[in-house]
């Protein structure tokens, strides 16, 4: 069966939205983090692509572009033993605490 990311030629497409959005800081970070881990040889494009393409269909279609990047990067870093899900959960809680209410 065809997987979700393999969407070339799907006939349910509408008009192309050509609006450009200014990147948020976290998107710049997501982009840079992906690139720099590649440059350092810690992961390669094919690995993060595989993780992205393995995402379940609902997540793939509902997350934004850089959310997909971050989700797939986390999968790869967990697989490589560089981080654990729990470490990331703890760090998110710590950051939320430090940031307070936006």
């Amino acid at each position: 069966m065809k997987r979700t990311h393999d969407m070339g030629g799907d006939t349910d497409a509408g008009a192309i939205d050509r609006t450009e959005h200014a990147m948020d800081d976290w998107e710049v970070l997501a982009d840079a983090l992906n690139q720099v881990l590649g440059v350092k040889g810690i992961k390669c494009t094919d690995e993060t692509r595989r993780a992205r393409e393995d995402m379940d269909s609902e997540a793939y279609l509902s997350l934004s572009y850089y959310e997909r990047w971050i989700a797939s990067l986390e999968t790869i870093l967990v697989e490589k033993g560089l981080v654990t899900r729990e470490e990331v959960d703890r760090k998110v809680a710590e950051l939320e605490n430090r940031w307070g209410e936006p």
Partner: protein
Amino acid sequence: MAHEHEPGEEHEAGPRHELSHWAKRAYAMRDILVEKGVVTENDIRQQAEFTESKTPANGARLVALSWTDPEFKARFMADPKKVCAEMGIDASTLNEFVILENTDKVRHMVVCTLCSCYPRPILGRPPDWYKSFNYRKRAVNDPRGVMREFGLDLPDDVEVRVHDSTADMRYLVIPARPAGTENLSVEELEKLVTRDSMIGVMDALPSVPE
């Protein structure tokens, strides 16, 4: 610069708006990787700056020189990465890099149906529409309709070739040189070469914008 401060700074002051689940995890992973010494804040900042420095101006220069110098064009099409290196454009991260030349009879259009592969060292980050599901879906079975949406109505006798990029194969289109531009300098010609014309969904501009 689209962002107001560097990606290393935001967590000190706190974000200006509520972040999504995955945005928070991006900051969390950044901090963990820095704490573990896998990357440094500086590595990340330098990478972001490096990426920001890649703009379609790189591609426009290569196209304008290809228009004015047949010998350059021949060398560029034969060995694009070598010519990029000579021009001070680092294309070493591209595996295969293929140059496609539009003619009166054949037009090329580039997509990445599976995600967003793009000649980043030459054009910078891909535009949002290039990454959109609608472009990824339609580029391969409705390229003429896509071009019409961008403002280009192709005659039926012009052949359209769509190139689906991969992690290992990236493309750049040399658009046709607009008529009546014989007297323009290379610098003026560069201003005609838009990003979208190098993806192949548009023509180069007919004249230098005001």
